[in-house]
């Protein structure tokens, strides 16, 4: 049987970070929580076969699950970005709402590529590994996604003045 203690410790320690990724992938806090719990549940079944750090493995499940969720859960997804309450003293970015909406208009696979590459700052190789695809696919999906964002009217002129890392 998998080690329940190690699994529990992982869930407690790494859920906040994983939830952030899930939120960017789903743009909905409730869906994000659902996605995270789904990924953790799937991971539990393979827990004792994971060699080394389990987080990449769980992240991969997170990403692939978000891409494959298109039917029933898709209908629950909102088109308006949720803007969480800012922490005391923190000012939310002024254009984050537009960005979240633009992100939501991308196909899921392209959205996942952008989140992993430019929000989480992962390499193309890491992104490919997490998505279970080739580096070439990551490049092409990334290129298409960025082109769509550049052309997204909601981002407007200010977007052209920003640059991806």
């Amino acid at each position: 049987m998998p080690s329940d203690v190690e699994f529990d410790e992982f869930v407690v320690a790494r859920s906040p970070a994983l939830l952030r990724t899930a939120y960017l992938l789903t743009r909905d806090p409730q869906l994000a929580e659902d996605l995270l719990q789904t990924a953790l549940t799937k991971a539990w079944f393979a827990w004792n076969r994971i060699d080394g750090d389990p987080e990449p493995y769980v992240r991969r499940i997170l990403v692939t699950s978000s891409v494959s969720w298109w039917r029933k859960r898709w209908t629950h997804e909102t088109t308006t970005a949720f803007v969480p309450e800012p922490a005391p003293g923190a000012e939310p970015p002024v254009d984050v709402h537009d960005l979240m909406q633009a992100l939501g208009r991308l196909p899921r696979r392209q959205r996942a590529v952008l989140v992993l590459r430019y929000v989480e700052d992962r390499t193309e190789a890491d992104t490919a590994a997490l998505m279970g695809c080739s580096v070439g696919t990551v490049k092409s999906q990334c290129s298409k996604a960025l082109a769509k964002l550049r052309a997204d009217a909601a981002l407007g002129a200010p977007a052209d003045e920003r640059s991806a890392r």
Partner: protein
Amino acid sequence: VNPDLSPLAQHASLIDGHRPERLAEVHERIGVARKRRRRSALSAAAVAAAAVVVVVAVATGVTEQRGAEPVKNPDVAPARPLTYAVGDTIHYGDRSIDVGEEVQFLTVTDDGVAFVREPLSGQPGDKPLWFTDGSTVERIGTTFGSPARGYLVEASDAGSLLVVRDADDEMGRRDFVVIDTGNGEVIHRDSAEFGGTDVVVLSVHDDAIYWAYPADTPCDLAGDRECLRYRWVVRYDVAADSIARVPWARYDEDLRSRPRTIVGPDRGTPPAPGTFPLDDPVFAREGTDLIALDYDGAIEATLSRARTGEPIRFRVPEAATEATRFEFSQWLDDDRLVLFAYTDPYGGSEVADEGDIFVCVVATGNCRLELRGQAGTAYQLPALD
């Protein structure tokens, strides 16, 4: 020039990630998932047992049966009565059997009902496996599990067999046993050390049992069943009491002779193209039509009968139920099956206890309401424990 997405990271960081109840919710999901996968997961003991036998088979040159398997006789198998439990009572056709304690699991063979009874709060451990033919109740074996985790018992789609993960022996090893419920005898038993890896039982029939060994595939998850479609599958031949590995194509061929096998779509994707047997199909309701979903219950899929290749389509009478989700429970005969209809409590893929029971005819696609559920009445059904 690319848009700057870095504000999204800050935005995401504001989401609350510290929910104290999350761990409990994840464990609850694990319990539900284990129930759903009960049919597919056997203990590491079974894996090791299978591996040992296969290794022995390889060593002795008794592997890769390449000759044609006898095609199964298409004669109609005997019908099984609708079976379910409510509380302490098993309903087996028109018989009601009070077994004295809450039924947490049941499954059906041609001879009767195998079940586990214990309190809902029961902890994981070795549990007596009981059997009733509708008149008497006797202990038929031991299995491992709990109400939350499910039990590792699987019945053949037709015939008399049960595949059971047995109790620990004095050395801490578990047995993988096959029981014939016609006479209560164990017809096959293997013991091996606990290896820590799940074997995935693909299908259990009256003359053969198939399973895959995830460690021998590129699969990450035992639950990723389609990924298990890789090179070969392990086959236990009941009549010969022998185990050998056979190519997937042979498994496909055998499935096409099985009237009670439903397969998913041929995705044509690695590791090998082809269909895959679905032992607990799930349907979403759209109007009066039932839309088949994939194994995870998230993606629309086309299901078909393995034997004929005909697509399976079901519909329910208008206003027959308010349920939104239908799950396979049991075959009654080669053409009729039982679906449990419920309203998904979370909008996801969790199984509810309250709902309606429908009987559907595969040939016509028509489903009729067999038993309307009542608020507060929790059903225990085969394959949906």
